[in-house]
């Protein structure tokens, strides 16, 4: 397979098309503009539809509608724009509508800065909208991972009939890297994927055969409670879908926890520190929901002296999940940047050196 040099946002967009995405609606916001721009020209080439919505709110609701027809559908935005999408994402989770969206995150809170950050972790993994629903959330660290995760995200979304989030950041959206693209699904395959949803999809049914009845809510509280229980069972099933990179952890006295862009920078810090003889390893969640608690829980705490949680968020957010897994068995320190300032290898190296002294 030959590699091509692609910008993160464009790679995500192309991966979506190759996975069978045939509807996208979005709204301009930096630094994700290359996703809608790319798809505005690419989707019509494969018989798909691009709509520039009048707002993030309208765009995500168009996707909520399109996805109800069984069409693979997607939207994207960045941080404050993602907040605007919250209500419809919650509707998708309640009505169990499969869709995919990407957050090319920037500094926050508020309008924050247009530069890369990881300040949306809690929103992404714990409360992407009202009602306590959950989603699978993928956190790519390279453009190649962004491609592979986006391609797979549509399959997970359709398997579970639930939204799936690609949680990237402004660095990943903006950098160009060599990638190997997955194969473009044929028109027949894409049609078959859509037709397989026909029973529940909002495409029109003969009433005698049973109507499609999309329920983002229920008049009966008992029915709504049952829906919540069904959702809970789905979320529990994700135990088997956890993805994590464990790098040089077997003999490590110091463990770095980091995801996404911070994760790859931390990995280069691990290499540098190992060359200095410091026994350090990395645990990098690739799915931040479901979170790889097990990888951190199972560490040998007679050997591990400390954990360094590395994030581009002040205050730290993922550290709460790390704490849940560590259970007070070793100290947890943080190494943080925020607001659009990007993590550097040197800062991580210095933080670990300080721990090792």
């Amino acid at each position, binding site marked *: 397979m030959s590699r091509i040099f692609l910008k993160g946002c464009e790679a995500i967009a192309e991966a979506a098309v190759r996975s069978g995405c045939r509807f996208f609606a979005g709204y301009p916001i930096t630094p994700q503009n290359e996703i809608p721009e790319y798809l505005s020209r690419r989707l019509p080439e494969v018989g798909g539809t691009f709509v520039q919505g009048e707002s993030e709110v309208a765009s995500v609701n*168009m996707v909520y509608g*399109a996805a109800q*027809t069984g069409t693979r559908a997607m939207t994207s935005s960045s941080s404050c724009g993602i907040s605007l999408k919250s209500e419809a994402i919650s509707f998708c989770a309640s009505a169990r509508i499969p869709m995919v969206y990407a957050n090319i995150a920037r500094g926050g809170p508020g309008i924050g800065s247009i530069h890369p950050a990881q300040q949306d972790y809690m929103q992404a993994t714990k409360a992407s909208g009202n009602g306590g629903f959950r989603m699978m959330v993928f956190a790519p660290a390279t453009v190649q991972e962004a491609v592979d995760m986006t391609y797979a995200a549509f399959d997970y979304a359709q398997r579970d009939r639930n939204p799936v989030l690609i949680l990237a950041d402004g660095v990943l959206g903006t950098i160009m890297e060599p990638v190997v693209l997955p194969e473009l699904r044929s028109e027949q395959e894409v049609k078959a994927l859509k037709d397989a949803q026909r029973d529940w999809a*909002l495409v*029109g049914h*003969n*009433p005698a055969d049973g109507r499609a*009845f999309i329920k983002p809510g229920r008049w009966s509280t008992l029915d709504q409670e049952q829906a919540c229980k069904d959702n809970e069972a789905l979320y529990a099933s994700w135990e088997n879908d956890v993805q994590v990179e464990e790098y040089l952890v077997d003999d490590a006295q110091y463990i770095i926890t980091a995801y996404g862009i911070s994760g790859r920078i931390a990995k280069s810090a691990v290499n540098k520190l190992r060359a200095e003889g410091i026994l350090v390893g990395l645990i990098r969640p690739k799915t931040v929901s479901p979170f790889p608690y097990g990888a951190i829980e199972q560490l040998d705490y007679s050997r591990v002296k400390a954990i360094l949680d590395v994030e581009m968020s002040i205050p730290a957010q993922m550290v709460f999940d790390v704490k849940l897994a560590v259970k007070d068995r070793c100290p947890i320190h943080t190494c943080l940047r925020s607001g659009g300032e990007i993590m550097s290898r040197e800062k991580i190296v210095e933080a670990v050196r300080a721990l090792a002294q």
Partner: protein
Amino acid sequence: MKQVYKRTETFQENMVSGFCPGCMHGTVFKLIGEVLEELNIVNRTAVVLGVGCCGLAMEYITYDNTTSPHGRACAVATGIKRANPDTVVYTYQGDGDLAAIGLAETLSAANRGENFTVIFVNNGIYGMTGGQMAPTTLVGMKATTAQNGRNPKEHGYPMHMCEILNQLTAPTYLERCSCNTPANVIKTRKAIRKAFQNQLDNKGFSLVEIVTSCPTNWGLDAMESLKFLEEKMLPEYPLGVFRDR
């Protein structure tokens, strides 16, 4: 004996609507059902219900339906229709849904000339939440959030959606009707049929505004509210065709 009238089969037989006595939602859904049957498109149709009393319909209609977030019906319908053009799509929205929280979605879908049908039910008040002021509430009309009546200095004036939409180039068909008399019910039925036929002919955005009553939140009985509709609502919201291309 020749059968001249029957209940629309788009209502489930064993269900009741849940609408208040004197409410016109039941009439409007009946008219829509009859039109869908006449045009033989029941098995191709999906309705996007707004948020409000109209949502009660989901339990008793027989065809495909979904509920949009409050105000977003025209965006949801855009997604459905664009992703699956063979489906006949209509939104059913009240005045709070379409003209307040959903104003941007309504205007933008109309401005894009989206090929679906909008049924806009205007009774000048929020129903399900309990009689709060709507953008369509008449000047001086009391609401639970405007207890001395709508005051233009504070609340502005009633919004006329057909007139506003008529400023746009793209819409195909805009008509305001009412269901206050048998004659007006028949006109409304014709308008609804035209709005669906336009969609089948790929002619673009059609909206039928229907001026209705809300006896419960107007604090009137059914007959009084018909009188109020005729004497107060219709002078503010004149019936007629605003656009027909």
